[in-house]
């Protein structure tokens, strides 16, 4: 256990824990757009930046991203110092210039008092904030279907060579976790399309409810040692089946 001071309050934390985890636990509101617990911290959005210092730093302080900073004994943290707030405002201002149409960005910026960008609006700026949550989740799940490509201001998220991604199984994790809901997908009858790839959906053999994609089911069955038949009926019909089986057993018990 280590002791640190956050906004004047003494807080305990586990060794090796990241500062942001502690801030969240203590219900201190620090914005974070590139953070997702399923993947390693990344440090791209810089919104979670806080000011840190220590008793013996002689008044010197440093700015660090709390998502990546391991807690230390004696750390003195301010999460909303004037400089930190100014930095967050600047970042949100820059975001607004690039993603003027993103409701999520606009909301967050408004929370920090930024309603209109003070910079030049980037022509054809889309809503992808390049947090790489999608690609990192995809990598962590083991698919590596999409990645960030290019560098500098022209960086983007895309499948390899901008082609239909061969390794995508259509799990939708990228799209569902995108903080700005940038990744598009469509359901059409028994099909799902994402990254221009069309997937057939599993259909419950009893009630006809659609579940995950066939490719995802096949992947899980093959790599995770789960009988494929499990995927052939939906959760509700699974429960009904269990009720019927247990009902049968109970009725035998009653007779006995």
């Amino acid at each position, binding site marked *: 256990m280590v002791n640190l001071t956050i906004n004047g309050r003494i807080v305990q934390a586990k060794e090796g824990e990241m500062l942001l985890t502690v801030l969240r636990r203590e219900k201190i509101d620090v914005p974070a757009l590139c953070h997702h617990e399923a993947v390693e911290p990344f440090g791209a959005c810089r919104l979670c930046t806080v000011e840190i210092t220590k008793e013996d730093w002689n008044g010197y302080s440093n700015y660090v991203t709390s998502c990546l900073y391991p807690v230390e004994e004696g750390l003195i943290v301010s999460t909303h110092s004037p400089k930190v707030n100014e930095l967050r405002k600047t970042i949100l201002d820059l975001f607004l210039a690039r993603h003027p149409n993103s409701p999520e960005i606009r909301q967050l910026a408004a929370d920090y008092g930024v309603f209109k960008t003070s910079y030049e609006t980037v022509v054809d700026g889309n809503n992808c904030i390049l947090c790489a949550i999608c690609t990192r989740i995809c990598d962590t799940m083991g698919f590596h279907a999409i*990645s960030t490509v290019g560098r500098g*201001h022209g960086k983007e998220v895309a499948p390899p060579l901008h082609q239909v991604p061969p390794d995508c199984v259509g799990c939708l994790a990228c799209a569902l976790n995108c903080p700005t809901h940038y990744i598009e997908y469509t359901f059409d009858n028994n099909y799902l399309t994402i990254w221009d790839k069309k997937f057939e959906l599993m259909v419950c053999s009893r009630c006809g409810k659609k579940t995950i994609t066939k490719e995802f089911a096949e992947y899980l069955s093959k790599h995770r040692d789960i009988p494929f038949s499990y995927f052939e009926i939906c959760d509700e019909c699974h429960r009904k089946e269990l009720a019927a089986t247990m009902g049968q057993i109970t009725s035998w018990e009653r007779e006995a």
Partner: protein
Amino acid sequence: MHLDNPQQLIDWHDKIIAKQKKIKKKILVCCGPGCLANGAQDIIDKFKTVLKEKKISGFTVEALKETGCHGFCEQGPLVVMEPKGLYYTKVKVKDVEDIIEQSIKNDKIIDRLLYNDPQTDKKIERYQDIKFYSHQKKVVLNNLGNINQCNIEDYIANDGYQALSKVITSMSPQKVIDTITKSGLRGRGGAGFPTGRKWATCRKVESDTHYVICNGDEGDPGAFMDRALMEGDPFSVLEGMTIAAFAVGAKQGYIYVREEYPLAVVNLQKAIEIANEKGLLGDNILGTDFSFNIKISRGAGAFVCGESSALMKSVAGEVGEPRAKYVRSVVKGLYDRPTVLNNVETFANVPIIIRKGASWYQKIGTPKNSGTKAFSLVGKVRNTGLIEVAMGTTLREIIYDIGGGIIDDRPFKAVQTGGPSGGCLPASKLDLPVDFDSLNEAGSMMGSGGMIVMDDLTCMVDVAKYFLGFLVNESCGKCVPCREGLYQLHALTVKVSEGKAEEADLEKMEKLSEMVIIGSLCGLGKSGPNPLLSTIKYFRDEYMAHIRDKRCPAGVCRALITYKITDACTGCMACIAPCPTNAITGKKNEMHVIDQELCTKCGACFAVCRYDAILVS
């Protein structure tokens, strides 16, 4: 021959010396990047054929050396004749026979090939007497220009591998680190971190393995010191790395070479093979139980890959994106193991320090900045090329003595150091001693050693715009302050250069710069605004001229200038054809006019006019 103990190295050294003593005269042909580009290879080939044909007594092909960069690239191809130091510049293939006939056979000097000092307009025979050389202090670059590239015998004859032998036979790892610490060596890759301290930290981390990496990414535009070293003196880099490995306990090393340096890769690879063969690298070095292997890793061609954490990711085969360094790479670097990363030049310093001792080294330079630093001096100076000076040498000495002053005696305006992370220093800083601390204090940086001299025809807004534009593309694009912040800073400088900015924009730029500096993840973003901030700091007037008067004093920013033909025009018609938009009209022997509507301000007419009749305003 494989060397199985240190004694064999000594014996070999003596044998080489005895052999080389017999060679009285040497012809050194510079095969550095500059001279090669100007045809040095053809000269070498010619020398070889002529020497074979002519059979000169006491003179064989062995006396011909294909050396690394001699430094004075703009005078190349260079041919130097030892022992006298006779120095021929701009040599052509057709001069080769003459050189052999007159200078080799008959010790005669060929006047037309001598260097002409532009300041005194006198011919100089020996290179030691040329100001470009006489004000330099060659320590690290000493072998360059003197020995055959990739020739281990030459390297050993020049005391090569004595340091490694000393380390292995008589020093403990701790003692090596202490020596380096005492020498005061600071990393030559830019930040100037004390090398001894870095090694000591790395050594202390317990791990199954440690790594040593040499940073040969050299991404600063215009810089080529590391390239010259890797190509011209690869063994010194290998020896330095091997000593570092001994000190920190590493068994594996990597040299990360920038993609654009194929010759460096070839020469390093050759050197690694030779060193392995000789038992100076690989398993059981010099018969001891110390083993160290080096692999070459080829860069991904991105500036940001020179940044330590991005470089390590790239070596490991991942995308070269920096990561936060709250846990430093000396503790958790390549493959999460403790890793020492140093610049090429840093490593090349190491054998010299070990051989000559820390106190000897300390005496060069200034107390907190010992040793020398190599620079590539480019821009509007008379003498451009690769130079090495003692730390603490003033900018004035470098620019006016070594560099020979500004071309056409124009006024000096600024010098840019440190590449895209550095800044521009004005004339008032000419007496600044060049070292890590003074440059930082003045708002620039040492960087890896690029030095660009600018005259009054350079617009500082344009310079800032250029570097920011470079960084907008070269930023890895991971973090927002750098990716979006530098983009907006660039957009604002464009606005200034187009005369569309307001005074408030200047303050906006300064504020945004500060946020980019504190907010960015890696050194690229953290130093990216330097070129802008330093030019605003020292050349505020020039910014104001763009903003308030809509005027570019240097006549560079296209939107703010007009080309006009004055009565000096002789009506020679030379400018009519080059104009891409046919904006110039005029009859022979009559004054021409430029149609301002059509003029795109490309400057093509200005460049061809022999009568200075075109006025930029």
